[in-house]
């Protein structure tokens, strides 16, 4: 009982320290530094999404960039319209559409290019936000349902999600009269949060992103601590046993996969707010795989670990890459770290930290431990 509590205390302490850390950043960084760091926080959110899907639900999603990209584009659609003026009609028309307009087309969103009608509802920025969450949720639900029904194994899930992100990337690049293709969406307006314009370089914007990350982290942590979260871990461990206890494996996987996708969608929204662009590079396979590396290094079975892994690796990477010679070295170092983690630290740096804390705590509590052990009907100590 004692070191289980201590283990809990250690975790709680880590959460508090992390939250205090991200909220104290404005004390140390100038506006450019803050803006850059707010993007790392968004990556941290992606780390949480990966950890939830991979570490807890056991679904290795190599296409998490799909949900991130959809979230980013949905937000960018709205913010692009907010920054566009009309082209003689009533609705605002993004500049790239004017260039791509069909000859003699009526200069309205509903008709100016083939498929441009999709943009019409995005004139409301909250519609953009809603789509950024809803579309990833629906897609993730469909993917998890289809794959779960047909009981394809993990490797295939990874391959199929990978293929999906590739497919969507192709569509985005191909349909440039609707998406602006390769160039992505730039010159975006600021998000208007109930009257507050979110200037990406303002302290308030950083704090809002930090707040969003905190909420996501706590909600995810709460979800995995519920009974449903426990059952999910059981499913990850042994689907057969879970089924034989009456749990519908698909339902649990769908639920947590959908939550993970919505977190990635929200990350896309926040990234666009902070970075003021959306681009098909979000849908690059390399980016999706990089996310998995962040989570693996930080510790996929730990939400906070994966989150810190994403923030830490990006922070170190960006710092080093200011010197050009170090930039290439960093790629190599990340590669090496990843290999070390895969081979010797399957639970990532978070696992290492928790083991170290465990050893330290257990030694300190040895006497109490024995006392508790000898009393029957008290809970036994966790050995990990």
């Amino acid at each position: 009982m004692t070191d289980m509590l201590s283990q809990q205390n250690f975790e709680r302490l880590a959460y508090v320290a992390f939250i205090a850390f991200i909220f104290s950043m404005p004390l140390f960084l100038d506006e450019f530094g803050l803006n850059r760091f707010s993007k790392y926080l968004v990556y941290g959110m992606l780390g949480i999404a990966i950890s939830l899907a991979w570490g807890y639900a056991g679904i290795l999603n190599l296409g998490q960039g799909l949900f991130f990209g959809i979230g980013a584009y949905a937000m960018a659609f709205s913010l692009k319209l907010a920054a566009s003026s009309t082209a003689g009609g009533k609705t605002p028309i993004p500049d790239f559409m004017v260039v791509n307009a069909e000859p003699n087309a009526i200069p309205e969103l509903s008709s100016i290019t083939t498929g441009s009608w999709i943009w019409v509802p995005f004139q409301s920025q909250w519609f953009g936000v809603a789509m950024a969450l809803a579309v990833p949720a629906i897609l993730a639900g469909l993917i998890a349902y289809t794959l779960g029904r047909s009981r394809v194994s993990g490797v295939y899930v990874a391959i199929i999600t990978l293929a999906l992100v590739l497919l969507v990337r192709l569509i985005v690049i191909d349909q440039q009269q609707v998406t602006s293709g390769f160039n992505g969406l730039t010159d975006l307006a600021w998000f208007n949060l109930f009257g507050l314009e979110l200037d990406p370089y303002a302290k308030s914007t950083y704090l809002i992103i930090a707040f969003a990350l905190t909420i996501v982290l706590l909600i995810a942590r709460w979800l995995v601590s519920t009974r449903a979260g426990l059952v999910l871990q059981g499913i990850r461990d042994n689907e057969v046993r879970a089924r034989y206890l009456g749990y519908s494996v698909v339902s649990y996987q769908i639920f947590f996969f959908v939550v993970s996708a919505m977190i990635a969608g929200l990350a896309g929204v926040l990234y666009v707010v902070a970075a003021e662009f959306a681009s098909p590079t979000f849908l690059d396979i390399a980016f999706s795989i990089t996310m998995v590396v962040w989570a693996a290094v930080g510790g996929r079975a730990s939400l906070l670990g994966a989150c810190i892994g994403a923030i830490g690796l990006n922070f170190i990477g960006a710092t080093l890459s200011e010197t050009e010679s170090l930039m290439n070295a960093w790629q190599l170092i990340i590669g090496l770290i990843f290999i070390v983690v895969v081979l010797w630290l399957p639970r990532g740096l978070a696992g290492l930290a928790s083991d170290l804390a465990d050893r330290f705590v257990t030694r300190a509590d040895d006497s109490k431990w024995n006392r508790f052990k000898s009393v029957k009907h008290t809970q036994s100590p966790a050995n990990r």
Partner: protein
Amino acid sequence: MDERRISFAVKDLSVDFNGFKAVNGMNLSVYKGELRVLLGANGAGKTTLMDLISGRTKSTGGKVLLNDKEITNWEEHLISRAGIGRKFQIPNVFKELTVRQNFLIADCKETRVLPNIVRGSHRELPDHIARVVELTELYDFLGTEAATLSHGQTQWLEIGMLLVQNPDIILLDEPTAGMTAHETRKTAEIITRLKGRHTILVVEHDMAFVRSICETITVMHHGQNLAEGTVTEIENSAEVQAAYLGSAGIGHA
């Protein structure tokens, strides 16, 4: 005997593994509250029969009935919810989780996702679980990862999880395999205690054990019901002896 209500039954049940019929026209009726022993040589199809009843393997012919309702080829979790629980021949628990977590998941009256989110998870073990933990002598291992338990303890953990799950029908596939003498004795005790409250189908080779607990034995051979009767009838059956010829004999099948 015929007045008793049938708990579950299989009728002409078959499965075809690419031409090999591991279960081939099997018939079996088990009465409510009965403890039925299933005997048969290696490869007779006992485990496969349990796979078919519980939905893990889909049959290619015949029916499975639960309280006169057909449940043939239902999904495993639905069959489980209908009241059939199972212990596997090779221990099947949540290895990466602690013993405590294993028990908590086995407490599965509520299986839907959303209610399980609202409910949160227990800090303290509910009484009915604590009793089972004590019965299975796992109190000192509650915080232990199941993977590190001994073979016998893992078997007991799985049996304990079944007790917590508390299904009407229990399928036990060689519950004492790999156990020490003490563990075997204790397992027999637990099973005897379950008799009457649950309907049990158990694959068990220990004839002393079988003699002490069971009224009716069903012998399976080549995927079929070869013989059914009391211990004495089965031990003296020429048919059964012929079927076991070549294998080590009835006690060591």
